[in-house]
């Protein structure tokens, strides 16, 4: 379930927004529904936040406190073990948790940046160059969006193993570079966002194609760049199926697979191996960077993810 997309692009969005804001202020909503609406939103917000609240509370508990605590499932116990748990993350299995976190960063960054760069180059080419086979290429690309990526994992695994790349970071990073949806988005965005006239004017002035790309196209493509970067980074960060299949060395795992492995060990029940407190604390710590990133980049994704999601 790692689908990621936005829909069609429109550069008209920006001017629209300005006029709409004016219109909205003039014709603002009245009436009794606002209370109902707010109540509905409040309920929705509670539903979406309860699991997180549980996680926050859970990570302050000791291992046995999770089972038989004084606070119940949704409130704090008398003892507050968050710092102890965090400290234990540094010592348990030699602090492997932080290795996992680092790996997740490496994978997400390499996969995210790499696939975005490829997507921007390819999307720009498909939008702004006319060459033989372009339409066929684009159809192929659109069709490939529908190929279940998880279905590719098994043959990819066999291929990578024949190339001797199983159980290396490459096995996760290289397949993550593939983002047909990213190409699709950039292409759709670039068609309107980069006026041909501008490119042609540059050519007349004697600018080379690379220079045109870096000086003219790239700045105009920034919103698409950020959006695709966000989508692919999140997709790589969340990836589970691929690393699960291609990695065996515990030192190479991303935090998602690592925590899942701890859960397996804890479920298996070995006395000293029950680390539920570390799983909850580890899960909390692991989701913080992405949540912080999303809060910090609100402007980008709220405008960005939409990227004019209307045609």
């Amino acid at each position, binding site marked *: 379930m790692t689908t990621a997309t936005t829909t*069609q692009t429109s550069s008209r969005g920006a001017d629209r927004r300005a006029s*709409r804001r004016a219109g909205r202020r003039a014709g603002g909503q009245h009436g009794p529904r606002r209370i109902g609406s707010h109540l509905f939103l409040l309920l929705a917000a509670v539903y979406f936040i309860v699991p997180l609240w549980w996680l926050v509370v859970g990570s302050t508990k000791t291992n046995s406190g999770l089972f038989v605590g004084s606070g119940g499932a949704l409130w704090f116990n008398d003892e507050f073990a968050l710092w102890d748990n965090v400290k234990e993350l540094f010592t348990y299995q030699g602090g492997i948790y932080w290795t996992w976190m680092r790996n997740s960063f490496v994978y997400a960054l390499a996969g995210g940046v790499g696939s975005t760069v490829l997507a921007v180059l390819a999307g720009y080419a498909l939008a702004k160059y006319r060459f033989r086979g372009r339409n066929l290429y684009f*159809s192929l690309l659109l069709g490939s969006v529908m190929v279940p990526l998880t279905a590719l994992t098994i*043959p990819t695994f066999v291929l990578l193993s024949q190339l001797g790349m199983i159980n290396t970071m490459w096995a996760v990073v290289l397949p993550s570079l593939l983002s047909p949806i990213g190409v699709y988005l950039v292409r759709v965005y670039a068609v309107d966002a980069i006026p041909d006239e501008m490119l*042609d004017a540059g050519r007349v002035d004697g600018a080379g194609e690379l220079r045109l790309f870096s000086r003219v196209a790239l700045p105009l493509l920034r919103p698409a760049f950020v959006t695709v970067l966000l989508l692919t980074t999140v997709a790589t960060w969340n990836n589970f199926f691929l690393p699960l299949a291609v990695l065996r060395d515990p030192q190479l795992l991303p935090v998602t697979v690592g925590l899942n492995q701890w859960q397996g060990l804890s479920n298996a029940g070995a006395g000293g191996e029950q680390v539920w407190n570390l799983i909850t604390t580890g*899960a909390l710590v692991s989701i913080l960077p992405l*949540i912080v990133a999303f809060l910090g980049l609100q402007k980008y994704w709220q405008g960005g993810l939409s990227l004019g999601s*209307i045609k």
Partner: protein
Amino acid sequence: MTSADRPTDRRPAGPGEQRGPSLLDTKRQWWGWLFLAPFTVVFVLFLLVPLAYAFWLSLHTKGIATGGESIFTGFANYARVFTDTDFLSGMARVGKFVLVMVPIQIGLAVTIALVLDTLATRLSRASRLLVFVPYAIPAVIGALMWGFLYSPRFGPATDVFGLVGLDAPDFLSRDLIFGSLVNIVTWQWVGYYMIIVYAALRAIDPTVYEAARLDGAGNWAIALRIKVPMIASSMVMIVVFALIGTLQFFTEPTVLRSVAQGAIPTTYTPNMYAYSMAFSYSQFNYASTIAFALGILVFIGSYLFLYATRKQSGLK
């Protein structure tokens, strides 16, 4: 689907084109391919080659008793997979998930987006963020958390139902596991779909509403008769992605399986079946067949849907 090219094709010939000599065009063709090259390498290596390889694997059979020798068996594996009750019941199950889960997700996402679109209060801004937050949480962690919440010991259900003197239902039992999974996926993805729909709504020119309001249309009428049709293309796209994702259902049931091995067998979804065939039983040929068969069905499914909604989506 080639209609996506329309904007460029329809574009009136710009001044550059009139001036552009054909010599430059051929040279520029190469630049196009050059920009495309890095992606193409990845595209070929990690999409086309694996696909071809999966297909090749699926045409061969390697039994564990036959000394590890791979034999060409043509379409025998496909004959097997389309009569394999495990695969078919898995397909039927994800079909049921599509029918239940996709409408719930889209319905909830659209409703929340519509409500948010009419409000500009602090609460509405905050809840927009809160609804979106689960998207930032990896599916594995999400499923892990819900696994805890469903547990009679870790979770709050026992306390909550105890308040009214009831026994908590067993969310991980055979009867409820389906709903429990629907809930996890809904929780995870509604925020993301909501943001897309919301952005589409914000892009509608509000003067449209003014006109409708002058004609005496209320909020509901505006929402249903004007807003929803205007964001149809966004909705078609998110349905397609929900559809593809659901047909490939894997992560959530796999994670939840560790606490419900009876209720979620290894054949629960086709993807799980393929995974266990490959990675638990070392049956890579048959696993590839399952994956390929699933891929074909996903492709047909999403193509049919896009075809049926070609008017709404603009992909005529």
